[in-house]
């Protein structure tokens, strides 16, 4: 079954832009990225779009379709109404470069702010041993394809540009959670408390657990339930739990 769809694509750059309308033929089984490519091939050869794998694995093709942040290559045309226009804009939380391409370097800057894995003393490469149940939680987080849809949707920065300096965003708070749950991460030995920095440096307190990051994640990572809330609970252990705080002060609590 083929039909003619109306596409309204935002065209422009940082100096301004507008929606352009196109009519384009849709074939059975196609995804939005197929249609963007057809537009490039037939009507708009200079339309800028970033993509790579067309398999939902490289995280390049993030955009907003009918107002919802999604991967162009993982949005099937069959899920959109054939009678209504398909409205495509670039990600609206980041600076636009041209057409559907945005500058996502905010995310790379935030990634660099998080101290990486700290190797345990006395273990050489190849000597790391971890039990499956100890790494299971972080394995979910490792499914991330760095599409930054969560970072784009999170209202903390999407609606408040000024919060970008103080808030790492869900993807990178999840990174902090991953490292804090890592069985071999030696942050504590190195004098780094990831719970303290999650709150004081990376802005965990700005998250109000309204779950939009989870809603848009194409990898279905349960970011809020499995990373952000557990991290908030860990912060509460450290900062808002007088008994645990007292116990750790007088050395009652054993290491776990």
């Amino acid at each position, binding site marked *: 079954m083929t039909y003619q769809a109306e596409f309204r694509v935002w065209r422009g750059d940082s100096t301004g832009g507008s929606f352009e309308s196109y009519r384009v033929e849709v074939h059975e089984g196609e995804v939005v990225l197929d249609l963007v490519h057809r537009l490039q091939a037939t009507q708009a050869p200079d339309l800028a779009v970033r993509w790579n794998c067309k398999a939902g694995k490289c995280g390049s093709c993030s955009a907003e379709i009918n107002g919802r942040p999604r991967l162009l290559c993982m949005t099937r045309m069959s899920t959109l109404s054939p009678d209504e226009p398909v409205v495509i804009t670039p990600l609206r939380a980041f600076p636009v470069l041209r057409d559907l391409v945005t500058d996502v370097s905010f995310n790379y800057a935030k990634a660099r702010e998080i101290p990486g894995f700290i190797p345990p003393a006395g273990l050489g490469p190849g000597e790391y041993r971890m039990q499956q149940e*100890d790494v299971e939680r972080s394995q979910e987080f490792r499914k991330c394809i760095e599409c930054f849809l969560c970072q784009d949707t999170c209202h903390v920065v999407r609606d408040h540009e000024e919060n970008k300096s103080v808030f790492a965003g869900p993807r990178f708070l999840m990174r902090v959670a991953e490292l804090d749950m890592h069985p071999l991460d030696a942050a504590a030995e190195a004098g780094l408390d990831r719970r303290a920095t999650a709150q004081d440096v990376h802005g965990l307190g700005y*998250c109000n657990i309204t779950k939009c990051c989870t809603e848009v994640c194409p990898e279905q990572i349960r970011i809020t339930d499995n990373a952000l809330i557990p991290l908030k609970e860990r912060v509460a252990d450290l900062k808002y739990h007088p008994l645990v705080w007292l116990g750790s002060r007088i050395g009652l609590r054993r290491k776990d």
Partner: protein
Amino acid sequence: MVSTETGPPTGTGVHSPGRAAVPQRQLRTDRWWLPQLATVTGLLAFIGYSTWRAFEGAHYYAPPYVSPFYSPCLAANCVPVRGGADWTLFGDWWRLSPALLVLIFPLGFRLTCYYYRKAYYRAFWSSPPACAVPEPHTRYTGETRFPLILQNLHRYFFYVAVPFAMILTYDVALGFRNTGGEWGHAGLGSFVLLGNVALIWAYTLSCHSCRHIVGGRLKHFSGHPVRHRLWQFVGRLNVRHMLLAWSSLASVGLTDLYVYLVSSGAFGDPQLF
């Protein structure tokens, strides 16, 4: 849909300088406001009903059933419940409805619950109204400062919620008597109370703080097999936390309504055995 050329944005939020000059604040075409409307309707209905019942101070004991709004009794002015959890911690100077002394604890538990926070931040405070729909506020600090930083105290309400669930469980046991106080009998109300307490327990145990306390805080599950199992069990409940939040809220209200109907004589409790 305007398709006229727009210059660079100079506003805030999605209209901040540098971002794509899309004139519309949001472009969602689905009914994104529907879940928020349902949340507001559901919560207001419960708040309205429970406020009326809490201040009424009557029709909360239909022997042998006691309403979950009025148990335990901490004031001196309660109707004595045969064998019930009546502890006069507050003297007889307390003249208001005894429910008010009790309801603040479940209220605090639910008010600081991670699920209800999401629900009311979205539905009542529009922060955000829905995903990729801009919020109306010009400034946002989330839970970084007073008063919302107090949400971090949720676990203390969890600690209090556990004994409360135990008391309600005890009330269920009391409900398996006949009107004369003899054990081993049951009416429809006994099972209403039983269903309610099952949902209360499921909601309480599916709490995110509970998940953290039983095992989530560990770095090494391999060294704590029992806590790992507990964590997995709570995790399975936790996936349904939203469903349990709503169903336990509804069941508390309906259980109270049942007791009210029986106590006020509007409905006769069918005796089963």
